[in-house]
């Protein structure tokens, strides 16, 4: 893993080197930036969005892990976003046995099916291919998601439905998995500014292992603009069910930058 880290840092370093510019993207939610939920809005045409975070997972059985995550998205066309993401975690061998990858490369495309109108929410589809570039990873996996966003006067609601099919599951691992996310975000400012966004979601998903119970959890996070195009984000979450190794507490902090 150590040999791969400098390459993993390259997108982040590139993002930090480039100059900031004036536009706003605080409301453009990406997965794990900071919550699992994503809005049905691709990155703007010709925009780059890079992110870096560090996530800590405190587990019920004390097999805690933590590690960095990197992402880079690009608005390839109007309504079409492509991108890549990578996450490393400690205890990769043990995590691989319970369906958590470390170092796998995710490549995705997100397409906006419909922008929001007076009578219809925004809809988008997203497809990720997960390549087994990580330690103890096997098979190429496919992730498909349907994303919906509806704005109201003071807040927005988001719903994500995700399906995963594993290319080469380990014995005891579920080949097909489902997940659902429902969340809300809204700007928090007594003066009506849009520099800070508060977010919360609930997540339900099938356990990676065949005999594992369904996993339910909730998260809460914040995105705060610290530069014209730089956003600091943080989140805390917990899983209420999910077996002996469920995440009692997840903490995430990171930055993202648009260019």
């Amino acid at each position, binding site marked *: 893993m150590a040999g791969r880290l400098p390459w993993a840092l390259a997108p982040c370093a590139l993002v930090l080197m480039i*100059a*900031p*510019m*004036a*536009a*706003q*993207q*605080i*409301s453009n939610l990406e997965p794990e930036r900071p919550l699992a939920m994503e809005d049905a*809005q*691709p990155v*703007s*045409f*010709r*925009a780059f969005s890079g992110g870096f975070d560090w996530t800590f997972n405190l587990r019920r059985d004390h097999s805690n892990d933590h590690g960095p995550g990197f992402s880079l998205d690009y*608005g390839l*066309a*109007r*309504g079409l976003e492509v991108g890549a993401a990578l996450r490393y975690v400690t205890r990769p061998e043990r995590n691989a046995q319970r369906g958590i990858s470390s170092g796998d490369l995710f490549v995705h495309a997100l397409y*906006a099916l419909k*922008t*929001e*109108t*007076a*009578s219809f929410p925004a809809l988008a589809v997203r497809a990720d291919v997960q390549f087994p570039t990580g330690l103890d990873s096997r098979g190429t996996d496919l992730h498909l998601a349907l994303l919906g966003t509806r*704005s*109201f*006067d003071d807040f*927005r609601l988001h719903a994500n439905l995700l399906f995963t099919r594993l290319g080469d599951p380990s014995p005891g691992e579920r080949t097909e998995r489902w997940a659902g996310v429902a969340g809300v975000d809204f*700007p928090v400012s007594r*003066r*009506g*500014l*849009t*520099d800070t*966004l508060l977010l919360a979601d609930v997540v339900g998903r099938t356990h990676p292992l065949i005999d594992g119970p369904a996993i339910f959890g909730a998260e809460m996070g914040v995105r705060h*603009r610290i530069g*014209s195009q730089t956003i600091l984000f943080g989140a805390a979450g917990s899983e209420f069910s999910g077996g002996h190794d469920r995440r009692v507490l997840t903490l995430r902090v990171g930055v993202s930058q*648009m*260019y």
Partner: protein
Amino acid sequence: MTAEEPYPPKGSYNNSVHRFFPDLDARLNAVRYGRWRALETAWISGVNAETDHVFANSLKALLKDPPRFVPEANLVAPRVARDAGPIFHALRWGQVFEQQILDILAAPDASARTTEERLTRLYDLYRRERWALTEPEQERPPAEALLAAPASAHLLQVGTRLFALAAEDLAAADFGQQRWRVRKTVDEFDQSFALESAPEDARYRTAAPTVFDRFPQIAEALDRLARFRGALFEALVPGGQTPQARRQRDEAVRNLARDWRLPVEGIGGR
């Protein structure tokens, strides 16, 4: 395919006003917030004495501690973004255009040649977009909105004039002299809000003669944007409180979009 406008054009000049003239940038941001708030308020409640009072007070409060960053328009005016997409995109793309012009003029490496090249490129990029405003087929002079909300109209006009004066300061002086001219303009802007003096002409043609002489197409495009904003408030006078008012408003806004050669799909319909 989504109707979203593209990301702002990239250039080394981006954010120059934010970096080198933070006091000016904060006030420009307050005006940008004010414009989007006024639009959202007018879309929902119409243009009348009550909304005039509420909006004028909120903008004055915002100007006491102006914001550091440009507002995220879809969060400030979510209903306009959702219910009148073409109008929203035209205004947001216009805001990007206006912001980048100031950034180009304020760039520390600006010379007469680089500024002209950059502005020409920016103007071409702006016009290439479907949300760029062109001369309307017909234009009705705003009258009712000005009478219905005089305080708001005054504040927005003072704000528009600030953009023009800032462009003039940045275009008429070199980098060393710009800060003194900008400081004077910022001071005058603060006083004009406090005193509620009679608004002066906010058009680039008169308030920014250097910009108009050197870059007439750009000055005309910015004046056109201000005229469009005025015409839009005129169309929003009925508001959207009752079904009848909503129908009236939606029809007026669709007519406005037709006049200004913008798409009408996605306007109203709720």
